């Protein structure tokens, strides 16, 4: 270092020339209280990472599970407090400098996601289903994620009784991202939230204890296709920015509507360029439809649902759908309402194809997890029918459907974890033959979930289906309702087939047994069952809740 010349002013990063007046940069306004649900969940996730690092191994599992449950419950309490405080309607506004909306749909979906997360924690923490490995209870997750399947390291890890307790903080990170996703009020926040919840899900998918190759294959497929769709979404974001000169939802909406607040020369040059808008909007839409699992972006669903550890599948099937549909609704209703006449025909087509392909392909499935995957595709189609209604009734029907559907899904996948043979979960449908004769209770509960999926009256599935079809019919989409009804009939066929198999077929001598779960999974299933029946018999309270939450803030 050369000696400084005497008298020269020393500049460094930390000092400025004394003579210049300091430039005032306004600090960002962050409404911490209004973002509390997200902050609590992410904060808990960070604490979970510390727990993982510092707590002795034998304490980690109970500590992590408890921590995750408490964090999610606290976040849910925060959501309820915000909703009670009027943020769902009167005080709804975009927070954090317009990046995150705090409004009815956001709070409703956040509440739903947090509850599904809470139920998922119960199934994640279950340790009684798998036979104890070397005297230590194990859960559904790999002993050591990094060990090569079937390799020496894995055997060592199993012998040592290791468990992957990281799943709890990872789950919390995913939930954190999902909370932001439907509330995101600008395209960048949307993208960041998408990545924050997707990456943990890719990891979780790879963590199955049994059939690890299948699980890792699923994770790789999910990751590759997910990365691809993220890239498309990001490209769309860039094009929309190029079109409108802003990434905020309200800013883009203003430009689409032809009423921008200020017209700069740059904006004046691009805002007439409909190609940018249409291509950009379509690409963002594609990214969201991928997460929703709508045809033709559904290819990943069956493989991932099948390969992922079943508790993860249940969580993913429920919560991802809620978050992604929330984001889709906000995009279509807040950003692109001015483009309604362009996207409605497209979404009509997507909804019809999704309903039909999901239902038809499900008929041929022989694996219960794949069957539920295709059924989730068909349900995505039903929900899309509510999305295209473009009315407040459409929004609230979608919200209600999402809430109803996620609990049926969680319950159904939790039941799947119980049916086991020597190779772990027996997901081959043929093995389920005669289950109703061996374990009438478990089979009956699963039958209730299937009937709810099929939309039989007095279950939540029927109330949800009726709500979305009603909104669609009133929104002038009667043909969509008729296709939906036909698809429901096809779908009913394969749900019923599983019931036939369970109750009317003789059990096989070497068939699977039903493991007796700990109170954790039992609670998860019971919650699913209660919500399914209550939302079917007395849905009015929840319809009101969804109805009050039907208006987006801009």
């Amino acid at each position, binding site marked *: 270092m050369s000696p400084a010349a005497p008298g020269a002013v020393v500049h460094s990063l930390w000092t400025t020339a004394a003579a210049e007046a300091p430039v005032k940069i306004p600090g960002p306004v962050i409404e911490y209280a209004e973002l509390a649900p997200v902050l609590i969940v992410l904060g808990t996730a960070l604490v979970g990472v510390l727990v993982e690092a510092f707590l002795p191994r034998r304490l980690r599992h109970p500590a992590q599970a408890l921590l995750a449950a408490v964090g999610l419950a606290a976040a849910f309490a925060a959501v309820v407090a915000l909703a009670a405080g009027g943020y769902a309607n009167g005080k709804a506004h975009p927070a954090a400098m317009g990046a995150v909306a705090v409004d009815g749909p956001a709070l409703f979906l956040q509440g739903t996601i947090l509850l599904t997360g809470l139920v998922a924690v119960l199934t994640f923490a279950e340790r009684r289903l798998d036979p104890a490995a070397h005297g230590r209870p194990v859960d559904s997750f790999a002993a050591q994620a990094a060990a090569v399947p079937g390799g020496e390291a894995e055997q060592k890890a199993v012998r040592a009784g290791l468990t992957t307790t990281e799943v709890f903080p990872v789950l919390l990170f995913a939930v954190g991202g999902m909370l932001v996703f439907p509330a995101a009020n600008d395209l960048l926040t949307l993208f960041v939230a998408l990545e924050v919840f997707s990456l943990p899900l890719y990891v979780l998918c790879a963590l199955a204890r049994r059939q690890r190759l299948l699980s890792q294959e699923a994770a790789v497929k999910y990751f590759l296709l997910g990365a691809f769709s993220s890239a498309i979404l990001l490209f769309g974001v860039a094009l929309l920015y190029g079109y409108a000169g802003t990434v905020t939802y309200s800013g883009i909406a203003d430009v689409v509507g032809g009423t921008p607040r200020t017209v700069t020369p740059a904006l004046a040059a691009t805002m007439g360029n409909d190609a940018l808008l249409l291509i950009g909007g379509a690409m963002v839409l594609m990214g969201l439809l991928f997460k929703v699992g709508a045809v033709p972006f559904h290819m990943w669903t069956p493989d991932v649902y099948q390969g992922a550890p079943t508790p993860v599948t249940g969580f993913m099937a429920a919560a991802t759908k809620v978050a992604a549909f929330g984001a889709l609704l906000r995009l279509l209703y807040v950003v692109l309402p001015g483009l309604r006449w362009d996207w409605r025909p497209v979404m009509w087509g997507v909804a019809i194809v999704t309903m039909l392909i999901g239902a038809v392909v499900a008929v041929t499935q022989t694996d219960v997890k794949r069957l539920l995957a295709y059924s989730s595709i068909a349900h995505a189609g039903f929900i899309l029918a509510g999305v295209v209604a473009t009315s407040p009734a459409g929004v609230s029907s979608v919200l209600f459907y999402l809430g109803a559907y996620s609990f049926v899904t969680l319950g159904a996948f939790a039941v799947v974890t119980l049916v086991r043979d020597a190779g772990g979960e027996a997901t081959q449908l043929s093995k389920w033959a005669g289950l109703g*004769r*061996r*374990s*009438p209770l478990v089979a009956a509960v699963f039958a209730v979930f299937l*009937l709810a999926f099929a939309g*039989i*009256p*007095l279950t939540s599935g*029927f*109330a949800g289906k*009726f*709500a979305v*079809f*009603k909104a669609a*019919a*009133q929104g002038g989409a*009667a043909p969509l*309702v*008729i296709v939906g*009804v*036909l698809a*429901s*009939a096809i779908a*009913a*066929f394969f749900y*019923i*087939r599983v019931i*036939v198999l369970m*109750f*009317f*077929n*003789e059990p096989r001598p070497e068939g699977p047994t039903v493991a007796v779960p700990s109170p954790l999974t039992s609670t998860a299933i019971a919650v699913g069952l209660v919500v399914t029946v209550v939302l079917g018999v*007395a*849905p*009015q309270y929840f*319809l*009101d809740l969804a*109805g009050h939450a039907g208006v987006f803030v801009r």
Partner: protein
Amino acid sequence: MSFPLLTATAAVPALGAVATAAVPAARRAAARWLALGFSLATLVLAAVQLARFDTASKTPFQFTESHAWIADFGVRYELGVDGIAVVLIGLTALLVPFVVLAGWHDADPLETSSRRWRPTQGFFALILLVEAMVVIAFEATDVFVFYIFFEAMLVPMYFLIGGFGDRAGPHTEAEAAGRRSHAAVKFLLYNLVGGLIMLAAVIGLYAVTAHQLGEGTFSLTRIVEARAAGRLDIATTTERALFLGFFFAFAVKAPLWPLHTWLPGAMTETTAPVAVLITAVVDKVGTFAMLRFCLQLFPDASRWATPVVLGLALVSILYGALLAVAQKDIKRLIAYASISHFGFIVLGIFAMTTQGQSGATLYMVNHGISTAALMLVAGFLIARRGSRLIEDYGGVQKVAPVLAGTFLVGGLATLSLPGLAPFVSEFLVLVGTFSRHPVLGAVATVGIVLAALYVLVLYQRTMTGPVAEPVRGMPDLRARELVVVTPLVVLLLVLGIYPKPVTDVLDPAVQHTMSQVHKGDPAPDVRVSDARVKDARVNDVEAAK
């Protein structure tokens, strides 16, 4: 607030279902008695309904209940009965105890079954659950409430058909289970598709009322009032589409040709008591709903569709009867005979004459009783011999005269012998049809001739002639079986000679329905005047005495 009689009539069997299902595996006998007790309690409530029903009342519905339920869907929990509903509830409540008694041992577990498998409890719980749902479907005056239970009753019915069948048959247990589950799936898919198409129409109805009345409603009374007042004016094509959606579901349930193909399989493969439940109770919801919902909600479209519906009904009558003649299986024969009879009921409803509809409603009751008698005795017979095939029997009347005798009465009722209950209703239907559509009425009478053929040939082959070897030593009806059959036979005789108590309750409701469709009876004509038809009816009744 007055006592919610209608809710109670549905709630008692529902509670019974829960109680029966909760009985531990070892206490099978308790489950049976519990089910019988609850079904009798329901019968008492149904009798109270009938006793307190005011036939002179001008209001369309009595004992009405109305509570908020799902405001977002415009749904209210609205119940109310007219004369038709109250009689059909009575029929349901009357038949279910007999169904329970007749099926006393039908669902005993096999010795090989797992100890936790509780088929007996399940069987009786499901029967009571079906009863509860049927009762509430008869009572509902809110289209949505009706739809919910119309659809939901498929689930217990499905388990009854698929889960329980005749013990001994030409097939092994596994084969029989396969055939049962096939029949159950067919039953469910047909009815579910019908129901889902109706769902689209239900949603359409909501969209129409929401659009025109400002808020969507499913209330039958409100919609009918609004139409009468001109506040609700459904466009012709919309009304026709909605009518077709509703009618399709009811035609599947009724069942009407060509949507009938689920019925023979379901009735043949399941146990005789469940077959009675299907044809005598559950299917009546379909024909009842045509009267209550199709005609009252969509009168113009009903008139528009009349020619086609009458044609289908006529085909059902002839087709069902012809196929019944050709059957080799006793239960299948009865199933096809039922299809023929449902044809008569639909014919009477859509003939749009007072006699036709009043005959059709009376026919619903009489067909329920006569089919129950015939089918239950057939079930006893089949259980004794272990075969459903007609050719396996012969000369039963020499070994088991009481069984053969009651079978004959049931059979004669099925062929509408004067003096037995179905005659009156079939005659009314034919007269009602004839006064408006003479050709149709004339052709429909062929159905009666065919009925004589299939019933008498069935009786001749099974009961008369030399005693077949396996039939030798067949025990006659036991005390429990006599308790089931005797009241039904007595009822067939009583209603055949003196149907007035039932028609008095039915007729005002029929008049009301007719007025909804804006159809009067055809103008009196020199040859067949209404007065003379009524005289003829009385004369015939007198003659039957």
